[in-house]
């Protein structure tokens, strides 16, 4: 069981890290989701003493999952969910203003809009 959990955590983390270095904002966000879930699975895997649900009356406490770690994982899942939603909101609003999700295109678009702002400001000063 520990081996399966370890391999899964490694796979999730590796795929997440791979997605993080891509140039697409949605892929980067997906990468953070995978890495968060790798950490949550790592947290839960610490409680895999046995595979029974920790519901009273328990047969022997040694053979059930650790309920504390389950509670912690649940909290971490909720937090991860909230932050992912926030990240996706940022991505959506970037898409709306720049019409692209590629980091390189975004950089170009930002430079262009900054230059436009600067020329506007320069003209404003001349008028004043």
């Amino acid at each position, binding site marked *: 069981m520990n081996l399966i959990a370890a391999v899964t955590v490694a796979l999730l983390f590796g795929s997440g890290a791979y997605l*993080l270095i891509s140039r697409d*904002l949605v892929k*980067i*966000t997906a990468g*953070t989701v995978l*890495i*968060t879930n*790798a*950490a*949550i699975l*790592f*947290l839960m895997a*610490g409680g895999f003493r046995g595979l029974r649900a920790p519901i009273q009356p328990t047969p022997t406490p040694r053979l059930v999952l650790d309920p*504390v*770690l389950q509670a*912690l994982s649940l*909290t*971490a899942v909720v*937090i991860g969910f*909230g*932050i992912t939603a*926030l*990240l996706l909101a*940022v*991505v959506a*609003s*970037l898409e*709306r*203003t*720049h019409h692209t999700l590629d*980091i390189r295109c*975004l*950089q170009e*678009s*930002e430079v262009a*809009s*900054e230059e436009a702002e600067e020329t506007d400001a320069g003209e404003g000063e001349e008028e004043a």
Partner: protein
Amino acid sequence: MPAWPLAWTWAFAVIAAAMDGRRRAVLWLSGAALGVLFALDLALIVQTSTRGTLEVVTGHWPAGVGIRLRADVMSGLFAASSTLVLFAALLHEASRAALTRTFPALVLFMAAGLHGLFFTGDAFNFYVFFEVSMTAAFALVTHGHGAPKLRVAHTFIVVNLLGSVIFLAAVGELYQVSGTLDLRQIAEWARAQPSGSLSLLGALVLAAFSLKLGLFPFHFWLPPAYRDSRPAVAAILAGALANIGSYGLLRFGADVLQGELRAGAPALLVIGSASALYGAFLALTRRGGAEVVAYSAISHAGYILVALGLGRAGLLAALLLSLSGALDKATLFLALESRGTLARFAFLAGATSAVGIPLTVGFVGKAALLKAAAASAHPFGTVAVVVIAGVLSMLYMYRVYLRSETRALEAPGPAAVPMAALVAAVVVGLSVWPEPVLKLAAQVATTLEEGG
């Protein structure tokens, strides 16, 4: 009672979240809530310094089942300074620009998250409150500016999320090896372990908090985030959120995992020195005021780590430097955006404090650091690093000051409510009359030493 400030802020944050933050009444309500919170923090500092650590188990559960809140002088000091910065940033932003619907509520949620983090006695709760304040910060970074800067916000969120994930893994591991989540019990357990056996845990915790503090190898997200957010938000990030990093290093390093801090001292000294010098050199090459202050924050984070690497003698310096660094960075960011004589004096006070010249609180911290460095086993290298970084900081701060002065003379814009001057007054006041803070900080340092 450590529960009062937390419950108070949380209640007001929820109320403010339901109301429209663009209305003046909500602003005054939030400002008043933060003002009362500051008074509660001060009362808590007085209480903890006379009666020792205060503890309360939430919901009257038996100890070990319920969540424990614990306040000592250190958490009180961090809480009070963060509240002051948040209060100043909120009123500053209100005087400069139209507030958005959520701004006051986000500032209050940040205050609530920070107070939970400073006052918790439970490792997992530390993570939860850490995430509450981080989420508020994520939302604040996207506040105010136009859409072009959102890419920086995206990077800020992704990088800091990774830091939180590292910390979550560390908390999970702490629970698995020690069998408890209570910080004091973990500390007792860790003291019984052979020194160096928890080095993986120590490294994870160090990486997580270094990332929040913006130390050298983990710093790359920090300058763009500080530069591209509104100055009030930058002040909140540098003056309140960065406290998570320094408080976390002090709480988990100097308190809970003392053996690991001692074992890792050479690494701390190397990373700290690298960060102090790197930040100072890079600050010299930058032209924008906000960017210079951001690199100066990286340099200052290096001092804190060097102080922690100096062992027991450095604890007092680490605490004083954390507090002074947060206050003077907040002053600088707020003053950079303001105009007029008062704002210029505020900038001068913040800059002198960042350099560490007498009559500002930065000097008190710098003096403690130099004293600890001189008394350490290898005084030469550490003292040299601190002095070189200090001289460089004088150069770049002077350059920013000159530039801001000419700009202020050319364009004497509307005089805003000088909230920068309020923080600057505290920065100077704490140095003119440093006895109370020095006494409290010394008390914290002795408590931390006695624990080990």
